[in-house]
């Protein structure tokens, strides 16, 4: 662990796809424990930041986890170092059953995690034999979260808009699940639903046009209408999508 107690350091992350620069040097830190929000308007590069941390897109810059540099490693090694990922569009394996999706994410130490995920999402046990592609959006989100939780060596979970497109009831369940997850791993959470972000996150990092424009306490941002409007846009202010 580094001196100031941060678990994840992102330094000068740059992503260029084709001709367009998507991230122009993103730097921030994620404190160990709890939930850090990664906010910003649509298209500012939140998803790309998460994918850049994992190495799913070609990038430059430096990413370290508990002092260990990850940047040169292949994706699967980065994940094996303890970085879990719940992608924006869930990316469940639609042709595989729920049980197979989970089995794929299983590690040697996953046994006791099954109890947790079935407690949070009993549907996953009931629908073990169902093809994940035929699940509802909310149920697919459960699979995606469960996959990340099954790996007990995950130290930080990168979770991208887990409440997107979900009913209010399901948003609540996902938020509860995130709160439980935050007790066993640090979470970097992309969340458009400001109410949810405000409720869950302690710190926030705000991106705008491919770089960090705000980093600090969630209340300082969200409770200041002028700041919130400036960084998150009118559409994001309030609770909506």
């Amino acid at each position: 662990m580094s001196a100031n107690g941060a678990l994840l350091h992102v330094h000068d992350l740059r992503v260029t796809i084709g001709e367009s620069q998507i991230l122009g040097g993103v730097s921030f830190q994620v404190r160990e424990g709890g939930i850090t929000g990664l906010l910003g308007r649509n298209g500012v590069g939140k998803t790309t930041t998460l994918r850049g941390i994992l190495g799913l897109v070609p990038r430059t810059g430096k990413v370290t986890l508990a002092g260990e540099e990850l940047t040169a490693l292949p994706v699967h090694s980065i994940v094996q170092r303890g970085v879990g990922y719940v992608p924006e569009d869930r990316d469940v394996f639609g042709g595989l059953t729920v049980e197979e999706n989970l089995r794929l994410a299983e590690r040697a130490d996953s046994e006791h995690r099954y109890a947790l995920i079935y407690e949070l999402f009993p549907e996953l046990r009931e629908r073990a034999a169902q093809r994940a592609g035929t699940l509802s959006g909310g149920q697919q989100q459960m699979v995606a979260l469960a996959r990340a939780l099954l790996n007990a060596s995950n130290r930080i979970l990168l979770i991208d808009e887990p409440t997107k497109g979900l009913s209010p009831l399901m948003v609540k369940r996902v938020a509860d699940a995130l709160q439980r997850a935050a007790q066993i791993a640090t979470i970097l959470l992309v969340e458009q639903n400001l109410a949810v972000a405000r409720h869950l996150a302690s710190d926030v990092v705000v991106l705008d046009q491919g770089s960090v424009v705000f980093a600090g306490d969630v209340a300082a941002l969200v409770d200041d209408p002028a700041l919130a409007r400036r960084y998150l846009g009118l559409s994001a202010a309030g609770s909506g999508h």
Partner: protein
Amino acid sequence: MSTIVLLLVTGLGLGALYFLVAAGLSLIWGLMRVLNFAHGAFFTVAAYAGFFAATALPASPWLQWFVGLLAGILAGGVFAVLTEIILIRPLYRRPVGQVLVTVGLALATLALVEGAFGSDPRQVTLPDWMNATTTLLGAAIPNTRFVVLLLAGLVLAGLLFFLQRTRYGLIVRAGVENRSMVSALGIDVERAFTLVFAIGGMAAGLAGVLGATYYGTIDPSRGTTMLISAFIVVVIGGLGSITGSALAAAIVGLLQQFLNFYAAAGVGDFAVVILLAGVLLLRPGGLLGGPAT
């Protein structure tokens, strides 16, 4: 009636050879999005490796045949793994480069085999039983047809078992759907790439030796013909689907045999192309396209 039975079994036997080549092509495409034009070269090299391994051995014809079979499987697998590691791996994300190197490898292999062993077909010696026929519903069926069908059936069962029941099979099925999500779960997908090449190469190698058993000869260019038929089978069956390949291989083999016999030589092959065009127009994903099944 007996002609129909003969054509049926012979067509299925031919389909079995197509399937053995197509299975690997299909998995390789499904998982890695690589069009492996070198797959016919695996077939050819295995056929010759099997031939020379068998003839080098002073043993009974059955033992020779069996040693040739193992040598062919081994040669196909080793050649495929080397191809993946040396030629394909450095070119991931460069599909045009991959097509070029695999086409180049196919041409170079053809030229080398021709240069070394000549372009004339060579007779293979088979155990007596394989030169004989068995009467089935009045038709005298060459026993080799049964051998080819049996082994291809075993390979199909083995592949399905691998895909459905093993961890690596699960990884392959998931990888066919979404490779980068598999690595985002901490799984080294590239190891599965090598494995899939090994499996595909061994199946093509088996086909190389069984092709020699089926036709009674080996020659340098049959691998190319097989490759073309196998590509058609893969597209009709659905890229990435093993069951689809098996089904399509049977259809293509039967269509060729029946039409070439009852219409005129060449009509069967033409009909296959029509079928291919029809599938591409009506079901672009193939008969059983989608996840690896």
